[in-house]
């Protein structure tokens, strides 16, 4: 316990930690706090041009829109894809182009020469929704994955339909409902803070993990009696707990502001806190563990670089709302509403977070092994040639 406090003191006293806390605070104040200025207003019937849009799997809307998109890209001979979260323009080879033409013929019931008549003709009359999904899946494979026709993007790109007043009102009521209001704001809080947690902890980790080397303390610590497992776990736990502090403070402040917004309502803080813990802790665990592991294996620079690439890919990989996958590091939900959409993805959310928590713990185990190996002198350092004359 004593070592935990000493490590915590060391962490909190470091410049990197102060910068980390300041950056999270800036993110919180600039992004989240303005959202808590007032509760959102209910939709007003007949007074608004649009009530927003909603994602719905309606085959009658989805199929023609997606087929038209595919046809358009086929004719321009260029397909847009995001295979690893980054934009890529794909051009098909002749063999694949011919297969794509056959797919389009089956989807539209038109030959390549007749394709311009698609708008009047519409989709093939014999095309079932199941067959449509199979063909789109094949089209996505031909493009190389991550295209607009992949299972993930189909709904997102071609199934956003305008909300009715009733739907908008229902969503509003659900958002500000006594049971849900704290969770609604927590989702938004986690969305903003999650962006920061995807990158900022690596600076603190890398800095602290290299402190021994910079201070030339490594060998003094290597020869101590403490086991590598105890030392690394204590350091990691202290680092993790310290990095939680700014989150606890900002979350408490966020809930205080939510409470002030709805003074007449009973706010379910504990549920909201549980959601924030599930959302943010695995991300913090993962970024800290990978940062420490890579810093120990190589140096802080690759740790920061790799985390930067991962963060950038994660930020660009998902839609701002309702696009939770099992693998993405950053979970986005950049809206106060859409609670039902979030609930519908609970399984993916839980699998994602559990996966990262387990991966983080595995990284810590690897870190212990690497550290113990270093303590025993392996891998062998390259010794500098020393000449040296006595006289």
């Amino acid at each position, binding site marked *: 316990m*004593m*070592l935990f406090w*000493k490590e915590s003191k*060391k962490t909190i*006293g470091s410049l990197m930690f102060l910068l980390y806390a300041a950056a999270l605070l800036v993110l919180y104040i600039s992004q989240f706090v303005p959202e808590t200025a007032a509760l959102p207003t209910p939709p007003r019937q007949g007074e608004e041009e649009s009530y927003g849009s909603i994602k719905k799997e309606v085959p009658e809307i989805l199929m023609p829109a997606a087929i038209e998109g595919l046809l358009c890209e086929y004719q321009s001979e260029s397909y847009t894809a995001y295979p690893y979260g980054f934009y890529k323009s794909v051009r098909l080879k002749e063999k694949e182009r011919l297969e794509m033409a056959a797919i389009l013929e089956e989807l539209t019931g038109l030959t390549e020469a007749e394709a311009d008549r698609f708008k009047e003709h519409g989709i093939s009359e014999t095309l079932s929704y199941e067959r449509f999904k199979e063909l789109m899946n094949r089209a996505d494979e031909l493009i190389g994955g991550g295209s607009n026709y992949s299972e993930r993007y189909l709904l997102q790109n071609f199934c956003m339909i305008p909300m009715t007043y009733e739907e908008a009102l229902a969503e509003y009521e659900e958002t500000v409902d006594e049971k849900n209001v704290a969770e609604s704001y927590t989702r938004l809080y986690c969305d903003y803070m999650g962006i920061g947690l995807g990158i900022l902890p690596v600076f603190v980790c890398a800095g602290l993990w290299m*402190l021994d080397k910079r*201070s*030339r*303390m490594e*060998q*003094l*610590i*290597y*020869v*101590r*009696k*403490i*086991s590598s497992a105890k*030392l690394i776990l204590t350091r990691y736990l202290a680092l993790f707990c310290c990095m939680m502090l700014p989150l606890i403070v900002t979350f408490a402040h966020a809930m205080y502001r939510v409470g002030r917004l709805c003074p007449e309502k009973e706010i379910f803080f504990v549920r909201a806190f549980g959601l924030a813990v599930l959302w943010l802790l695995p991300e913090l665990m993962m970024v800290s563990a990978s940062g420490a592991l890579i810093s120990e294996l190589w140096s802080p620079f690759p740790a920061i670089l790799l985390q930067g690439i991962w963060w950038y890919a994660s930020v660009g990989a998902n839609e701002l709302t309702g696009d939770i996958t099992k693998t993405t590091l950053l979970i986005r939900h950049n809206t106060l509403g859409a609670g039902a959409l979030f609930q519908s993805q609970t399984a993916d959310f839980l699998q994602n977070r559990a996966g990262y928590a387990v991966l983080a713990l595995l990284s810590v185990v690897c870190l212990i092994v690497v550290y113990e190996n270093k*303590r*025993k*002198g*392996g891998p*062998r*350092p*390259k*010794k500098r*040639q*020393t*000449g*040296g*004359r*006595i*006289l």
Partner: protein
Amino acid sequence: MKNSDNRNQIRISHVNQFYGKKQALRDVSMVIPQGMFGLLGRNGAGKTTLMKTLAALHAKQSGEINICGVPVENVREIRGMIGYLPQEFSMYPAMTVRESLDYLGCLSGLSKKVRDERIEMLTYKVNLEEQMYTKVKKLSGGMKRRLGIAQALLHDPAVLIVDEPTAGLDPEERIRFRNLLCEVAQERIVILSTHIVGDVEAACGQIAIMNEGEVLWRGTVEELLDHARGKVFTADLESDRLAQVKAEFIVTGMVKQGNVTTVRILAETKPEIIAAEAVEPNCEDAYMYCLYQNGCENLKTDGNRGGML
């Protein structure tokens, strides 16, 4: 299993160590008894490698090392028995002397009560009482070295290993440091690695001379001096003969007074080309003679290799 005969000594048998293809230790064997033991050698002789191997910081490739009855492979136990002061070290600069000792005491598994007692006792012993609450970054080089000794003794180790601790210290601080080590060595094994012959002469009962990973010589300082007796000569030379003498002999000392230079040289027999007188060897002479006798290169001041004495 501990053997009562081995409890106060380190036994090293046929130890080899490699850095890639370069062999850093070659079949090193010796017994290091309680007290001050000096490891003498040039830079790159293998002293630091041997000490790191003893401190379980490097795994040996072959051979056996037994420290006070414990095989060096029992890393956990060895770590509790060894106090180590590396050649290049510091501590967290933002911590005070007390905080840094307390932190390292924690890592050694000492209770708070024991840490408090030992920190007080050791800071008194190394004369850092007044700097107890001074940050490490504000300590002088000598103070840092003394702090280094204090941290190495914190857990009362049976063996203290110090790697070139006096390098960069002024003469007064060096003497103080040597005396401190001698005091410490009364109740444990202290291995002092250095390339400063004077430190070994002044402080160590037993010494070993290393070169290119091999132990060239092992014994007491007196035995080393005896070994070089009758091989050291002094002569007064005109300046124009100096270059010739430097080319033909190993010169261990030169004092210039006007046009005459008094040189100390090593030779197997009394040199005939100059009027030289045999003198008592000092430790530096003996060390140089040992290196020469074992075929070490680059001993002459003009850089010519080999040649006769």
